[in-house]
């Protein structure tokens, strides 16, 4: 049975698109046929992060309006043949998306794909609403600071009251917390909320902590999802997230401060 995953946060700039690209690639690399959809109509970014911006012909809105078929609009990823991207339209706005149209496309995708990742725009308006409406699972991307946590909490409220599952009284959306741009050094200095602080406020299952990392920016600039950079801390953290999502147990990493070379050699804390 196909699962629809929404990657959402409420607040902007926390790493939704980076996360969408990474987890879609991660699931596809594990051999699951995966589609990733950019719901940020008007501010399309996912295709840049996935490095397929030069191959966009038709987009999400074209398919909704019946101007192109789904197969014409889906772009196969060049790194992994199990992964397809449905880009957003840059020339329209979010009102171009209709609830029935989105539902129809997702139904069609569900026949062919195992996982469908919906990259939500920021905010709680139409685009974000439609991205989460049909979801089965939600990845709540949160930065360790109060406004991001508050916005995530608001988004969780919307998931549990306005989604299709909530409206039809089905089993609620499964919610997972993803803490991104985490910096143990700054937590220690009291400049950032700790993992425990965030969990205390949101009381949510923690799927993973992604450390603040240069590799994320490098990956974005080069158009390759960071999970493919297996040497980087952020890439490994996303690989852990995929493993945990698929039911494997992995200890949490990157929560404590990095040990220096001497620390590593002598094992001191």
């Amino acid at each position, binding site marked *: 049975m196909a699962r629809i995953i929404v990657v959402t946060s409420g607040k902007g700039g926390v790493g939704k698109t980076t996360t969408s690209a990474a987890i879609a690639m991660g699931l596809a690399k594990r051999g699951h046929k995966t589609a990733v959809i950019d719901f940020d109509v008007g501010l399309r970014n996912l295709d840049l992060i996935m490095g397929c911006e030069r191959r966009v012909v038709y987009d999400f809105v074209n398919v909704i309006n019946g101007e192109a078929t789904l197969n014409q609009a889906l772009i196969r990823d060049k790194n992994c043949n199990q992964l397809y991207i449905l880009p957003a339209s840059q020339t329209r706005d979010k*009102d171009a998306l209709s609830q029935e149209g989105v539902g129809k496309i997702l139904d069609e995708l569900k026949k062919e794909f195992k996982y469908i990742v919906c990259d939500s725009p920021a905010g709680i308006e139409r685009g974000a609403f439609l991205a989460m409406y049909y979801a089965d699972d939600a990845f709540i991307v949160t930065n360790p600071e109060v406004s991001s946590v*508050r916005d995530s*909490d*608001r988004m*969780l*409220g*919307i998931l549990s009251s306005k989604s299709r599952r909530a409206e039809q009284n089905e089993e609620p959306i499964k919610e997972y917390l993803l803490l991104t741009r985490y910096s143990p050094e700054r937590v220690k200095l009291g400049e950032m909320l700790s993992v425990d602080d965030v969990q205390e406020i949101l*009381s949510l299952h923690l799927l993973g902590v992604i450390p603040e990392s240069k590799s994320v920016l490098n990956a974005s600039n080069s158009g390759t999802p960071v999970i493919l950079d297996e040497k980087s801390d952020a890439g490994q953290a996303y690989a852990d997230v995929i493993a945990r999502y698929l039911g494997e147990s992995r200890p949490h990493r990157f929560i404590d401060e990095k040990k220096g070379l001497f620390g590593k050699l002598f094992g001191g804390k």
Partner: protein
Amino acid sequence: MPTDPQHTTLLPHALEFKSTTFSVPVLILGSNDAVNIKLQLQDKIQLAPEFFKNSPLILDLHELNKQDLDIDVSSLIALLRSLALLPVGIRGATTVQLQQAIELGIPANSGTNQAAIETSKAQPEPHQVTASEAEPSYIAVSTTLITQPIRSGQRVYAHGDLIVLAQVSAGAEIIAEGNIHVYGTLRGRALAGVQGNEDARIFCSDLQAELISIAGTYKISEDLTESVRNHPVQISLQNNTLTIIDL
């Protein structure tokens, strides 16, 4: 977004019905002396003229009728209107009073005691035991139980007691006509006894609320002392002040 040309001729969507909850001041009368009522109302209005100006108001005649004091509803409404108050409903009224109100376009507000009074039209017997009469208006209608966290931006309204088995996030609002129990951290706003029940209480296992209120008397987060913050507490209304004590 009509894409089908056949549908564009349809009238655009012009209205929808929604149910919502307002908080409206209730005027509870304890005397039928029109002069006295007028003087005391003027005093009150003087305290906050802007707040009362054109404020909607619900008349509560339950206390009055309990003491068997009759009042002419039409002259009372005329008095309120002359003071720039806008009565929008009546409760606790007898059948005659209700009729007067409805003739003046004031709807009867459901809930509380009006039905009880209406059915016991021939009052003499029950009214001999006025003193021992319990407050029928404040009996909890039902208990609302919530097991999921109440998130920022969500509002919950309970007509009776409200029990929350999870946390209430900052930016959330829980409102009950009766008591509120939160078996988790209370970070949002909690308003108990919103229909005027001064005996309502708030219980929570960790007090970090933005605002707490019982029957309209409130405290904001800044007013909470460190001795009660982050503690399991119960909050009650005593002599018009909120009293917070450790559980």
